[in-house]
């Protein structure tokens, strides 16, 4: 935690932007100024006289098969997160990966993506990645490492591997698990531990309580009529969240049988925002609400005490809804909840006839399902006892993210050889004897299972950028089987099943990105009520916990800290808070008022053992008497490149407060204002709709009653020419977009995908604070109703491509104008930067390059490799905005022209549309009445944003529809705009 000014200076700028860090030049007198002005005019003129510097053309020596220079090539591969596989299709240009999207054939992505999947590209090219092996901090070669490991191997062979420990994240990869198994076979005394700060321990222990064995849940939300979530966020967390989003949204189309979602949550999340009824309580209180719900449904559980009348009413209505939809209901327990709640959810699901209908119990996807906290605790204890001789940490930073009471960093000092294999020179790397750069997933061979057990292969898209080793390398080295390529290791593992790399099934699996028929089989298990009852009785939470509660959650984008130096993710506004570049103590409006504090006020939180100081952020929908802080910030990384790491000085490290007994919430904390402020950068500061109704809402009952059109705004006199001058009769497609606000979950995947596709720069914290973020599509977040339990509304806003575009009338140079396909286009090289267009835009979707964000940056050469060659990189002084992915339109147009056919519906898919996990964005030709977008726009709930201005936007929205339960409707519906502003 640094003071306010320090914080502003450090970590504020995407490295290398030319904004001066030094004070501006001293004031000059008039005479000097005139001299300088004269010289610079001359110099400018002279510079313009030089011919363009010649460009080089560098052809291949031997052209690889299938490569056509200038055309993209797509490959299927797999990216790992928390050990689970996410199938991706990666676009490469002449060997450079430039865009990641979901693989439509992979169960975990279904063709969609989230912000993190998009930003894995930035992770690959991240200039902060470590670039060379380090021995005690000194750069060494990979050969030196191999030699040293050979010596270690000799030493370990003598003792049968006594004292050898390997620490990995949870592993689903069949190859990695098999090779670690082989390592344990050759060193019988060695141990394999797993740790991930956000691992789903409670789900594993919960299923052990309920069934006596570890069981995974896979859901079929498309078959559910009622879903109840007991804390957590099924739309944002866990390896199945994209599949959840797709299934869930498929049942949220307004009409008879629309799914109803009930959410209990302790921190506002995407599921809570999507829910019809949200109950906000501090995390420990969820247990007793779950008990009350179970009791209402007739399960014999310990009685719930001390429910408020509102909670009682909520739970009763929820239970009635569940009971009425037996066989079509689903109960989900969130990761932060204790195992007993997960076990109770299993019991509830069994009682509601969910198994086989809305969910399936399956064999776990993890190779070794175990609560990782127990695994790490055992390791830490052995380290402190001096029983660990050599520790190999693969892809982890336990010195940073292990619970504080394990004193992991201290323990490392008692290990004679620590080898760290990771992407960054982080806290663990600095304490290790050897640091080995880890190859990124896009540089490696491998495999992984998705949440449902399906295996997909991982193939490299690019040669390693740095002197790194793949994830599978170190165990092979220890087994004396090096040098051996990771491709051989994976192919050898799949030899028996797929016939290895020469066989057709292997090639088919690589091409498709999925190994057919590998999903785990469902298991026939029955919950054991007595065991669940015992576990519930032992679980605290049914008594009043001492307030306040401090809750730990993963940063929505930076996760557990893995992406701390990822510029795209740091600058991507978090869905609910719209904060960038920092974490904060999230606090409810009521609690903030009681404490007499506001946004950015620094609070000191102490637990007795540890203290942190972090700025407060008042968040409507936070439970009272609870604070939430995101993990993953304040990570100390030494940049592998020049200059400071991007993660330096960003946010506050909350791990020192986290202990083995309190992984997600802890009580017994003191909170007090420190009396100073820390500047935070948020992208939205006003949260009320002020009667302009940008997001129109209805209830399902109103829709079914025939009030089937979105409420319309007031008519205003218009100064625009009538009829619209846009040449609709031209024989050209007319592009338009429809956004379904009922499907949008606010996850920010669209913004991240747009950033990757359109070469959108990162501007840094200080520029964001000045309102200069560059994202072409923003997701606005509004609240309505009571500030303590508000309803949250999301609205993605790209350029609306108005037919009566206000921006075009004021441009002095004609840099923005309409083309005959109805696009409002920007001609960058005509723009002189008056910014009148932005001033005149009622939607505020135009973005201006106030400083040079792209060229001249440190590491510019490395970062230029991730740019999309089809999109102009804009320089300083130029206005830009959403183009409806004009490069994709152009590609479709040219391809159609080459093939001598019209552009078909679906030929053009914008980047945001492609990424959206719920299909909320539809794009196409609005002049074709049969196109998907025309059908979407003909829907009775379709409306235009600020239609009363008569700008005739080509982007329209479909109203948000809620499906409240009749018993709670009168209390919850149509609240005024009372929310926090």
């Amino acid at each position: 935690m640094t003071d306010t000014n320090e914080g502003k200076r450090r970590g504020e700028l995407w490295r290398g932007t030319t904004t001066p860090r030094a004070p501006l030049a001293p004031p000059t007198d008039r005479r000097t100024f005139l001299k300088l002005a004269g010289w610079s005019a001359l110099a400018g003129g002279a510079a313009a006289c030089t011919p363009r510097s010649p460009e080089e053309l560098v052809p291949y020596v031997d052209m690889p098969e299938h490569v056509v220079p200038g055309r993209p090539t797509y490959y299927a591969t797999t990216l790992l997160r928390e050990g689970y596989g996410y199938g991706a299709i990666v676009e490469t240009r002449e060997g450079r990966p430039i865009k990641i999207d979901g693989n439509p054939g992979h169960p975990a992505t279904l063709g969609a993506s989230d912000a993190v999947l998009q930003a894995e590209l930035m992770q690959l090219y991240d200039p902060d990645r470590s670039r060379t092996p380090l021995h005690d901090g000194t750069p060494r070669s990979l050969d030196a490492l191999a030699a040293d490991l050979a010596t270690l191997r000799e030493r370990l062979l003598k003792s049968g591997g006594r004292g050898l420990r390997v620490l990995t994240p949870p592993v689903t990869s069949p190859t990695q698990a098999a090779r670690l198994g082989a390592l344990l076979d050759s060193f019988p005394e060695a141990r394999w531990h797993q740790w991930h700060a956000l691992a789903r321990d409670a789900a594993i222990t919960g299923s052990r309580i309920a069934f006596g064995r570890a069981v995974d849940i896979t859901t079929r939300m498309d078959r559910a009529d009622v879903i109840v979530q007991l804390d957590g966020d099924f739309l944002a967390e866990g390896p199945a969240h994209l599949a959840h989003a797709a299934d869930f949204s498929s049942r949220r189309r307004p009409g008879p049988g629309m799914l109803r979602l009930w959410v209990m949550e302790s921190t506002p999340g995407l599921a809570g925002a999507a829910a019809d009824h949200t109950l906000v309580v501090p995390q420990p209180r969820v247990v007793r609400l779950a008990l009350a719900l179970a009791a209402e449904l007739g399960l014999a559980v310990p009685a719930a005490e001390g429910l408020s009348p509102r909670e009682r009413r909520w739970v009763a209505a929820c239970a009635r809804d569940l009971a009425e939809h037996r066989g079509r209901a689903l109960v989900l327990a969130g990761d932060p909840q204790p195992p007993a709640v997960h076990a109770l959810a299993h019991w509830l699901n069994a009682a509601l006839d969910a198994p086989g209908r809305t969910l399936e119990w399956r064999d776990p996807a993890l190779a070794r399902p175990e609560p990782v906290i127990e695994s790490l605790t055992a390791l830490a204890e052995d380290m402190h006892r001096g029983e660990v001789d050599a520790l190999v940490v693969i892809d982890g930073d336990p010195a940073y993210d292990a619970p504080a009471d394990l004193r992991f960093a201290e323990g490392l000092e008692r290990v004679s050889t620590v080898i760290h294999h990771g992407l960054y020179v982080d806290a663990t790397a600095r304490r290790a004897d050897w640091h080995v750069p880890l190859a990124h997933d896009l540089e490696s061979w491998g495999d992984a299972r998705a949440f449902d057990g399906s295996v997909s292969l991982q193939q490299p898209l690019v040669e390693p950028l740095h002197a790194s080793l793949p994830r599978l390398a170190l165990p092979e080295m220890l087994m004396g089987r090096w040098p051996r390529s990771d491709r051989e290791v994976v192919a050898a593992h799949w030899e028996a099943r797929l016939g290895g790399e020469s066989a057709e099934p292997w090639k088919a699996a690589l091409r498709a990105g999925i190994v057919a028929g590998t999903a785990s089989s469902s298991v026939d298990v029955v919950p054991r009520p007595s065991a669940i009852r015992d576990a519930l009785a032992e679980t605290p939470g049914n008594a009043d916990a001492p307030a306040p509660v401090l809750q730990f959650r993963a940063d929505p984008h930076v996760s557990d800290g893995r992406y701390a130096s990822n510029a795209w993710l740091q600058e991507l506004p978090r869905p609910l808070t719209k904060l960038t570049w920092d974490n904060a103590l999230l606090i409810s409006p009521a609690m903030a008022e009681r404490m007499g504090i506001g946004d950015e006020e620094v609070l000191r939180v102490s637990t007795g053992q540890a203290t942190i100081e972090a700025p407060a952020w008042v968040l409507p929908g936070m439970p009272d008497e609870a604070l939430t802080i995101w993990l993953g910030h304040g990570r100390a990384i030494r940049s592998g490149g020049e200059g400071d790491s991007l993660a330096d000085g960003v946010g506050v490290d909350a791990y020192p407060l986290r202990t083995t007994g309190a992984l997600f919430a802890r009580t017994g904390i003191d909170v007090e204002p420190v009396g100073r402020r820390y500047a935070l950068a948020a992208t939205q500061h006003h949260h009320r709709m002020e009667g302009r109704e940008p997001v129109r809402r209805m209830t399902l009952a109103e829709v079914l009653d025939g009030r089937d059109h979105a409420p319309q705004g007031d008519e205003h006199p218009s100064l625009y020419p009538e009829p619209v001058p846009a040449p609709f009769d031209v024989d050209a497609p007319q592009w338009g977009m429809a956004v379904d606000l009922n499907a949008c979950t606010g996850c920010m995947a669209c913004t991240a995908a747009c950033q990757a596709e359109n070469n959108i720069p990162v501007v840094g914290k200080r520029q964001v604070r000045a309102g200069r973020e560059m994202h072409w599509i923003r997701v606005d977040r509004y609240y309505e109703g009571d500030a303590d339990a508000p309803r949250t509304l999301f609205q993605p806003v790209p350029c609306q491509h108005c037919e009566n575009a206000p921006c075009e009338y004021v441009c002095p140079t004609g840099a923005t104008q309409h083309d005959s396909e109805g696009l409002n286009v920007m001609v960058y090289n005509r723009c002189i930067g008056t910014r009148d267009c932005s001033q005149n835009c009622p939607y505020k979707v135009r973005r201006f390059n106030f400083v040079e964000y792209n060229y001249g940056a440190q590491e510019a050469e490395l970062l230029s490799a991730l740019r999309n060659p089809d999109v102009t990189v804009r320089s300083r002084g130029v206005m830009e905005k959403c183009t409806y992915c004009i490069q994709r339109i152009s590609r479709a147009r040219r391809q159609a022209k080459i093939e001598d056919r019209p552009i078909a519906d679906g030929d053009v898919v914008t980047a945001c549309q492609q990424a959206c996990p719920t299909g909320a964005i539809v794009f196409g030709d609005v002049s074709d009445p049969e196109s998907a977008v025309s059908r979407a726009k003909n829907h009775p709930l379709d409306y235009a944003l600020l239609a009363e201005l008569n700008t005739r936007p080509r982007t329209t929205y479909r109203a948000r529809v809620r499906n409240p339960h009749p018993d709670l409707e009168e209390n919850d519906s149509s609240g005024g705009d009372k929310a926090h502003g």
Partner: protein
Amino acid sequence: MPQLFPRWSNSVARLAFATLLLCVPAVVAGLMLHVRSDWFTGAGIAPVQPVPFSHAHHSGKLGIDCRYCHTGVESSPVAGIPPTRTCMTCHSQLWTEAEALAPVRESMASGQSLRWTRVTDLADYAYFDHAVHVHNGVGCASCHGAVQTMPLTMAPHAFHMGFCLDCHRDPGPNLRPPARITDMDWSPVDGAADTRALLAHYDIRSERLDDCSICHR
């Protein structure tokens, strides 16, 4: 107070004003001419290349089709510069000792690419697609000129926006029958092409071809 300036300073001032009035437009006109000059645009100037490759020999004399080397021209936005391997298909047999070809053999042996200097340089903010042009009746010679006569390759003219727009606004005169796209000696007069028939054949409607978004994005 005595007079500060002598009388002749009036004449000097008038002369200075007149000069200024003449000079400013002259300088502006000079600069405008300058940016259009061949020296500035590189038109008609053959840059020094690692190998003195002659289109006059390969295309003109030997009659090798453009697509033998520029393989991407029908399928990709870029026509492509041939990989060293393409040169060596012939030159592993012919002129194997030639001094001028030493860099090619070296490239093949070492795996290091030849580094050519770009001859036809379009502004980076304009996006040109070879494939769509050659599929719609625009021949190689229309933009690249008579390369079959060039011992050393040069751009035949400047690639200003006006050059592109002339054709985008009135594509007819530059269209050829599909079989004549890579025919370097074909000319509309000899071919007696029917402009209207070609426009219909390729289904080209020029009213949209001068939209900004056709080339800029």
